[in-house]
């Protein structure tokens, strides 16, 4: 049965897969970080009592959660960014923009839920001591909310890691791109796709472990 696997082809393309998986990890990490910042502002904006402060975050979150990531990637790379810069930016730029914006929209909801899950009494206690809304948010609410947000944030990072495979469509050389390259060149399917599936699996399992560890360390109070 093992004779069915084309180890020779696999070993020829494996260095490319390693190169690709590094890019996959890079783009995921960068996008999660930017997404957290975007999500923080969008999430807090959505909690504002002022309709005009809610407007832009609501539209943003609504759009990026309500449309497929794949469509967003194509739209951003082939239409939006070329229109802004006058020419297509490198795929890496489009990829980070698309994934960050998408992650930010989901993380905004995580922030919103996290903030709303904190007992109202916490905000009242802080305000009754004379703290401003912002001081109370950053000193009292967010530190507690972030602990509760760790599991959903970890899930979002795992989703993003997997979804980065869609960036192959804009020729971003992450690991799926190289698997498609191998499949196209060798007419093999099992070897490239099962290999990268296992690579993704290892990464998502490690990530899930990491989240569990952080959860235990900074866990519920």
């Amino acid at each position, binding site marked *: 049965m093992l004779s069915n696997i084309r180890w020779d082809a696999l070993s020829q393309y494996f260095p490319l897969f390693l190169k690709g998986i590094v890019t996959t990890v890079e783009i995921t990490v960068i996008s999660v970080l930017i997404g957290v910042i975007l999500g923080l502002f969008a999430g807090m904006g959505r909690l504002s009592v002022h309709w005009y402060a809610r407007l832009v975050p609501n539209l943003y979150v609504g759009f990026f959660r309500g449309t497929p990531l794949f469509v967003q990637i194509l739209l951003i790379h082939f239409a939006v960014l070329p229109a802004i810069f006058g020419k297509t930016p490198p795929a890496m730029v489009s990829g980070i923009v698309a994934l960050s914006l998408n992650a930010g929209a989901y993380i905004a909801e995580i922030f919103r839920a996290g903030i709303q899950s904190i*007992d109202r*009494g*916490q905000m*009242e*206690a*802080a*305000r*009754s*001591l*004379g*703290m*401003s809304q912002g*001081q109370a948010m950053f*000193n*009292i609410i967010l*530190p*507690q909310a972030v*602990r509760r947000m760790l599991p959903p944030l970890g899930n979002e990072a795992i989703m993003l890691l997997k979804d980065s495979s869609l960036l192959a469509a804009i020729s971003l050389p992450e690991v799926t791109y190289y698997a498609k390259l191998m499949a196209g060149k060798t007419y093999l399917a099992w070897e490239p796709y099962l290999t990268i599936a296992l690579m993704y699996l290892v990464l998502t399992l490690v990530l899930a472990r990491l989240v569990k560890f952080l959860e235990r360390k900074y866990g519920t*109070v």
Partner: protein
Amino acid sequence: MITVRNLHKSFGQLEVLKGVDCEIREGEVVCVIGPSGSGKSTFLRCLNRLEEITSGEVSVFGTNIADPKVNLNLIRTEVGMVFQRFNLFPHMSVLDNITLAPGKVRKVDKESAKKQALELLRKVGLSDKAHAFPNQLSGGQQQRVAIARALAMNPKVLLFDEPTSALDPEMVGEVLDVMKALAKEGMTMVVVTHEMGFAREVGDRVLFMDQGYIMEEGKPEQLFGNPQNERTQNFLSKVL
């Protein structure tokens, strides 16, 4: 010190306060009693505008805080509040709970804030708990920390919102003792409470609220001993 004129408060269609007038003078301990749903907690929360004021006037140290332009944060530094459910910050040690607001709001330097906090902890009998976290304390201890936290801002008046209602019976005493000591020192206090014994013993004045009005007010011996209003009589006959 605090003057309330024709205070109305509605939640949507529901009118909870239907025109409250009262005066809190410096050094006074005013206890607010009444059946649940009478509006007494809402009344208290209007005094530092934790609830938006629908109409009327609430003048605190001469400033009408119903005015939307007023600097609430400034007023609130002078009006401390103690909550039914303590509302300590669970992610901070007892010491940090107490020193946070003085540092952030009053810009007190770390050392003197800490010194003051330890002094306050001694006062509420929890000197050994400075580095504990709230979830390591009993309810009574948490509430005493909450009082220390409020005192750390050196407020001119303290509002207590049913401070012993969430406590196990054996812990009520320790909290009331701290409050009595404060009253003796001359702290101005407004206390919403179900503890009739405390109101009678410590209160300079007692307000009986029902259905969104102050139905009757007077010195404790008068209100408890010889209530005039039929509702007051009715209420007291149930709780005493």
